[in-house]
C-alpha cells in the first residue's frame, strides 16, 4: 500500500480538507469577518455585463478553469524529475495549505472590499503610480516568458506523441463549427455542443484506430542522419530543428488568429470545446491515482533524488531552495491567480461568504490536480523529460484503471496537454495585445495586427533556441514573485484597515525572498553559460546547427531578462516592505 501513490495523494487531499474546514474558515470568520448581508460589488454596481451576482458553484467552476492550465501539471512533474517526489509533494501540500489558498481568497476579498477593483488600481491606491507601472512592465515580461515556455511544452508533446496534432485539429475544428452554429445559425447550445463533441470524438477515434492518422511522426522534417551524425536520440525533441520551426510556425498562426479575430468567432468556442475532454482527463487521472493499490501500480521514482544540482553539470537544476519553490508554481501558489481573483470573479460574487468556497475551493482543487501530476510521474521507472512524462504517466495510470488499449489514453492526454496549453497561450497573446494597445495607443506597437507579432517573434526565438526548463524557472520566478507581491499588498491592506496581517505577511516575505533568490540564481546560471560560451542542455543541438554564437546571444538575452526582472522585483519588494512598515506603524 505505501509503495503506491494513493496514500500520499489521499494524505494531501485530507490535509487540504482540514485546512479548508478549520484554518481557512477561521481566517474567513475572524480576520475578514465576512457577512452575507454586506452588499457585494455585484449587487452595489449591478450593470448586467461585468457586475452581476452569480451562483457560487458557477463561479467556482469559472475560477478553477481560469487558474488551472499547464502550470499545475508541468511544474510538479519537472520538480519530481529534478529533486524526487517527496520534496515536490511536500511543497504542493504545505505550499497550498499555508500560502496558495490564502493568496487567492484574500485577493478576492480585498477586491470585494474595494468596489471590485483589480490589482492595478489597488496597488495604485496603496502604493502609488510608480508601483503600478512596475507591475505593468512585470506583467509584459511575464506574458513573453510564459508564451515561450508553453510553446515549447506544446511542441514537445506534438512532436513526441504522434497523432496529437490530428486530434487537436479536430478539437479546433469542433470549436469553429460550434461558434458558427451558435452565432450564425442560432442553434441550441446543447445541440451545438453535441455536434462539436461528435467532431472531437471522430478525431479521437480516427487517430486511435487508423495508424496513418497518427501524423506527423516524431521529427518528421529532419532526416534520421542528422540525429546519428550528432549522437542525438531521434525520439526526443531538439531545439533549432526544422520540425521545431514548423511547429512554431503552426502555433504562431493559431495564436495570431486567436489574438486578432473577434472572440466569439474563434477563441471562445475553441476554449469551450477544448475544455470538455480536458475535464474528463483531469477527473480520470485523479481517480486513477487513488485506485493504484487496486491496479497494482507502484512508485518507481526515488523519494529524494538531489538537494543540490551543480548548474554546470545539470543546468536545469540548482539548490532545492529556492529552485523547487519556483519550479512548482501553480498547484502550490501562483501570482496569476491574484489577477484572476481580483478580476471578474470578485465583481460577480453574490455574497461575501462565497469568497472562500470560490477562491479557496478552486485553489485546493488545483492542488489536487498538482497531486495527480506528481502521481503520474511517480509510477514511471524511466520518465521522459518534459510534459511527455505526464502524458506517459497519466495514460499508464488510466489505462490500468479502465483496462483499455494504451493508445486511447495516450491520445486523450496528448490532446489534454496540447489543448490546455493552446487555450491559455491564445488568451495570453490576446491579453498582451490589449495591454500593448493601452500602452502604445498611437504607435504601431499598439496596433492590433502588429503587437501580437512582436510577442510571437520574441517568444518564438526563446523557444526555438530551447532553454525551456530554465525559462520555466524564470516563469516560476516571475509568477511566484507576483504572488509574493500580492500577499504583501494584502498585508498592507489588512494593516490599513487595522486587521491582523501575519497570515499573508509571513508567506509574502518568504515568497518574495525565495523568488528573488531564484531569479538571481537563474540569471547567474545564464550569465555563467553565456560568458563561457557553453550551450545549456538541449541547446547543444542549436550550437551544432547554427554555431555557438546564437546560443551565446540567447543566453545573454535570457540573463538580461533575468537581471531586469530581478531589479524590478527588488524595487517592487522594497516599495511593499516600506508600505507594510508604514501602515503597521499607523496601526
Amino acid at each position, binding site marked *: 500500500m505505501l509503495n503506491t501513490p494513493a496514500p500520499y495523494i489521499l494524505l494531501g487531499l485530507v490535509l487540504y480538507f482540514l485546512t479548508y474546514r478549520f484554518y481557512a474558515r477561521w481566517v474567513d470568520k475572524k480576520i475578514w469577518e465576512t457577512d452575507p448581508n454586506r452588499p457585494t460589488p455585484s449587487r452595489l*454596481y*449591478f*450593470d*448586467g*455585463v*461585468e457586475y452581476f451576482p*452569480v*451562483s457560487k*458553484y*458557477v*463561479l*467556482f*467552476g*469559472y*475560477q*478553477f*478553469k*481560469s487558474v488551472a492550465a499547464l502550470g499545475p501539471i508541468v511544474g510538479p512533474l519537472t520538480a519530481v524529475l529534478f529533486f524526487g517526489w517527496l520534496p515536490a509533494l511536500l511543497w504542493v501540500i504545505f505550499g497550498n495549505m499555508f500560502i496558495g489558498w490564502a493568496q487567492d481568497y484574500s485577493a478576492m476579498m480585498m477586491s470585494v472590499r474595494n468596489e471590485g*477593483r*483589480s*490589482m*492595478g*488600481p489597488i496597488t*495604485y491606491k496603496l502604493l502609488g503610480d510608480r508601483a*503600478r507601472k512596475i*507591475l*505593468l512592465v512585470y*506583467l509584459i515580461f511575464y506574458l513573453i516568458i510564459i508564451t515561450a515556455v508553453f510553446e515549447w511544452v506544446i511542441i514537445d508533446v506534438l512532436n513526441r506523441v504522434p497523432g496529437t496534432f490530428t486530434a487537436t485539429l479536430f478539437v479546433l475544428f469542433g470549436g469553429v463549427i460550434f461558434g458558427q452554429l451558435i452565432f450564425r445559425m442560432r442553434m441550441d*447550445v446543447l445541440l451545438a455542443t453535441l455536434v462539436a463533441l461528435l467532431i472531437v470524438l471522430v478525431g479521437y477515434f480516427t487517430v486511435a484506430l487508423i495508424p496513418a492518422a497518427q501524423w506527423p511522426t516524431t521529427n518528421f522534417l529532419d532526416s534520421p542522419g542528422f540525429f546519428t551524425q550528432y549522437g542525438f536520440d531521434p525520439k526526443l525533441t531538439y531545439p533549432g530543428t526544422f520540425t521545431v520551426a514548423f511547429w512554431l510556425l503552426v502555433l504562431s498562426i493559431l495564436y495570431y488568429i486567436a489574438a486578432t479575430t*473577434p*472572440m*466569439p468567432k474563434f477563441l*471562445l*468556442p475553441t*476554449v*469551450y470545446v477544448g*475544455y*470538455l475532454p480536458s*475535464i474528463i482527463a483531469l477527473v480520470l487521472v485523479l481517480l486513477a491515482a487513488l485506485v493504484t493499490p487496486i491496479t497494482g501500480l507502484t512508485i518507481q521514482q526515488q523519494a529524494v533524488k538531489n538537494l543540490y544540482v551543480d548548474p554546470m553539470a545539470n543546468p536545469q537544476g540548482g539548490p532545492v531552495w529556492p529552485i523547487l519553490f519556483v519550479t512548482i508554481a501553480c498547484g502550490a501558489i501562483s501570482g496569476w491567480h491574484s*489577477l*484572476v481573483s*481580483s*478580476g*471578474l*470573479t470578485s465583481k460577480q460574487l453574490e455574497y461575501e461568504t462565497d469568497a472562500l468556497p470560490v477562491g479557496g475551493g478552486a485553489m485546493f482543487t488545483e492542488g489536487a490536480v498538482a497531486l495527480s501530476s506528481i502521481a503520474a510521474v511517480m509510477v514511471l521507472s524511466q520518465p521522459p523529460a518534459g510534459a511527455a512524462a505526464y502524458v506517459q504517466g497519466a495514460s499508464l495510470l488510466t489505462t490500468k484503471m479502465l483496462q483499455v488499449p494504451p493508445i486511447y489514453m495516450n491520445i486523450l492526454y496528448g490532446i489534454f496537454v496540447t489543448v490546455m496549453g493552446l487555450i491559455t497561450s491564445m488568451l495570453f497573446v490576446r*491579453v498582451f495585445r*490589449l*495591454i500593448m494597445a*493601452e*500602452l502604445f495607443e498611437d504607435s504601431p506597437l499598439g496596433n492590433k495586427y502588429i503587437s501580437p507579432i512582436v510577442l510571437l517573434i520574441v517568444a518564438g526565438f526563446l523557444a526555438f533556441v530551447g532553454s525551456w526548463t530554465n525559462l520555466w524557472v524564470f516563469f516560476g520566478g516571475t509568477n511566484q514573485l507576483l504572488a509574493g507581491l500580492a500577499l504583501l499588498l494584502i498585508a498592507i491592506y489588512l494593516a490599513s484597515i487595522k486587521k491582523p496581517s501575519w497570515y499573508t505577511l509571513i508567506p509574502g516575505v518568504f515568497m518574495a525572498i525565495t523568488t528573488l533568490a531564484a531569479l538571481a540564481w537563474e540569471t547567474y546560471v545564464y550569465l555563467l553559460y553565456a560568458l563561457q560560451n557553453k550551450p545549456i542542455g538541449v541547446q547543444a543541438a542549436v550550437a551544432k546547427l547554427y554555431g555557438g554564437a546564437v546560443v551565446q546571444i540567447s543566453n545573454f538575452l535570457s540573463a538580461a531578462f533575468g537581471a531586469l526582472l530581478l531589479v524590478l522585483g527588488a524595487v517592487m519588494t522594497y516599495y511593499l516592505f516600506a508600505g507594510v512598515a508604514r501602515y503597521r506603524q499607523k496601526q
Partner: protein
Amino acid sequence: MGILDRIREVVEGLTVHGQSTAILKVKAQIDNLFMIITVGDMLGVPILPPYYSLRLLPYVFPNIQNWKRYMLRERDFTDLVT
C-alpha cells in the same frame, strides 16, 4: 439545491460562464456606442442634435445610469486579464 444542480452549475462555470460574460461585454460595447451617439452630450460628447436625443430619451432612459458608470469607471491593465 440538489447535488445534480450543483454539478450542473460547476460545469456551467467551467465551460460557458466565461464565454457568456465575454459576449455580454461585446454587446455592452455596441450598446455603449449607441448611447454615445444618442445621448453622448451627457458625457460632453455632442453628436446628435438635442432634438433627436430628447425624442430618444424615453427609450434609453433605463440604461443611462449603468452606461454612465460603465463609461466613467476607472480601467486598468489588470482588468484585461479576465
